């Protein structure tokens, strides 16, 4: 590498990670100050774990993210299968576009429209409060769904279309053939989709803000609420923990992906060897 490209890479990494490094460093600061690092301590971590409300909102966030992930992963996989089996090309393209809308749509629009829908339906049934955990869950599933479809569909398209027929030919019912053959083939896509759904849901503020009620607060909403007063360094501590959890998920995801591309490389290598051999 030439020195210029080395410099460029270094700059980019500084640009990307400087904020996180500062966050990390100051989460261990003894004092509350953002300008002076007065000494290393776990003080803010201790405070964090004794802050009931924050822990409650973290628990809420995790429950919501996990539920949204499970539901959107199952629904998204089934939807991808449906789209994959469509014969008419224009119909498939149309469905693809429609399912991608929540992905391209600005969060603020999705958030407002979701809120309007829930309030409208709530009024129809004259419920006292129309926004709660369930409305948030519906909203989260909605914006996670296209990401799952987006990950699963290419795996289906890569798959040899005769595999399902082969499994049935060899004694499987169509239902069983799916679990024995299709599922193992598309599993990497499903896992990636699920991880994406989980991080998106955990991280979402805008849509959650519009669709949450008073009795169910997620972590991003709680943090936002705190910024109206003062952000204590225990939030740095929390952010640091979340960062490392996300990093771990990302690494896991890449591991799955690498395994996949390794298989692909092996396949290519093999076909080359075959050419030479024959």
């Amino acid at each position: 590498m030439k020195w210029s490209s080395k410099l460029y890479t270094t700059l980019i990494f500084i640009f990307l990670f400087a904020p996180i490094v500062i966050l990390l460093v100051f989460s261990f600061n003894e004092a509350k100050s953002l300008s002076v690092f007065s000494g290393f301590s776990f003080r803010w971590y201790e405070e964090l774990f004794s802050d009931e409300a924050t822990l409650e909102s973290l628990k809420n966030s995790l429950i919501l993210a996990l539920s949204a992930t499970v539901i959107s992963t199952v629904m998204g996989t089934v939807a991808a299968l449906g789209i994959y089996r469509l014969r008419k090309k224009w119909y498939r393209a149309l469905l693809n576009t429609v399912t991608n809308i929540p992905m391209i749509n600005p969060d603020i629009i999705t958030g407002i429209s979701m809120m309007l829908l829930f309030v409208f339906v709530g009024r129809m049934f004259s419920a006292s409060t129309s926004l709660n955990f369930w409305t948030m869950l519906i909203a989260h599933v909605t914006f996670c769904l296209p990401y799952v479809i987006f990950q699963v569909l290419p795996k289906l398209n890569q798959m040899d279309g005769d595999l399902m027929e082969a499994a049935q030919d060899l004694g499987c019912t169509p239902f069983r053939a799916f679990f024995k053959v299709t599922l193992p083939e598309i599993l990497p896509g499903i896992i990636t989709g699920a991880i994406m759904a989980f991080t998106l849901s955990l991280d979402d503020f805008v849509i959650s803000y519009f669709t949450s009620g008073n009795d169910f607060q997620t972590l991003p909403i709680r943090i936002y609420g705190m910024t109206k007063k003062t952000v204590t360094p225990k939030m740095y501590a929390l952010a640091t923990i979340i960062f490392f959890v996300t990093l771990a998920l990302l690494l896991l995801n890449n591991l799955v992906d690498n395994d996949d591309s390794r298989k692909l490389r092996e396949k290519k290598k093999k076909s080359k060897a075959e050419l030479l051999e024959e």
Partner: protein
Amino acid sequence: MLLAYCFFILPAQAERGAIMEKIIELKNISKSFDGETVLDHISLDIYDNEFITLLGPSGCGKTTLLRMIGGFANPDEGDILFMGERLNDTPPHKRNVNTVFQKYALFPHLNVFENVAFPLRERGVKKAEIKEQVMKMLSLVMLEGFAERSVTSLSGGQQQRVAIARALINHPKVLLLDEPLGALDLKLRKDMQQELKKIQKSTGITFVFVTHDQEEALSMSDTIVVLSEGRIQQIGTPTDIYNEPVNAFVADFIGESNILDGVMPENFKARFSGHTFSCLDKDFAPGEPVDVVVRPEDVDIVPKDEGMLSGVVTQVTFMGVHNEIIVDIGGFKWMIQTTESVNVGEHIGISLDPDAIHIMKKSKYSGVFGDYSSYSNELDELSDPGGEE
């Protein structure tokens, strides 16, 4: 009566399974996709222990027919019988039929052993027995040392063998093969042809083989079914099909043929290219227009003056065992295969033995096939009509 039956009818039928048991009967099968007819009233009997090939160009309906037997397509009309029982509505997993797919369709997430063991596991066979059966099957297809290998690491020929082993392990009554050799290169294909034939003989399982490769069909099959445009053109042994094609389509599709326009003035006489030849065919109406087939290897080259017909050599191609030459006789380009050496521009005579000539009824394929004009470099140069006496 009985005696007559024994003497005349039995020998004729014994050629194709009067004693053998019918395994599959296709009765009046029709199918169309999006208004386009793919199969047009097909009726066909498939016998036990037979190597039967469905042969035809792409789009003739052969794969659809195979998929119907496998259970992956349903006929719009007609019945499929399996050992006398109607099979139409039986789903694929309940049919005693297995398929070798064109691109093998091996399960990439399973190794060689598990791929072959798959059908046994589905049936709930005991572990020890699975191991024994799979190993036996792998040795049949000569892949003993490959059990633990990943299927994606195998060569095309090896994958092919895994696919065959996997399809045979349930001992199906019938094995369906959908152009299984299509993805292999020429040399490997020849080897696999021999091997498949050997496997069929040793297992005694009925093979229904789909191909568009006529050579493959001729060298492997007991019976060939020639299909075109969703209809059966001819059913017969390879020699029957080659020596006595029923129409211009079959004659052209199987091997090389010169197909000429002619008439039958009387039994055992055929007139074409301005000359009357002796032949072995009869039972045509006097003066009936017919198609005449002459195979390129059945033409004898003689000096110009001694020939029944004569013409000018327009092209010579060295093929190794023989020369393939194109001769212009009265404007019709003949293909002749000969071991003699002739030169382009040379005037030669040709002679035909009675058994070199095969007469066919006129069909919708008449006049479409059988002229080798496109082979010639000198299309417009017409030599003098040497055939006229």
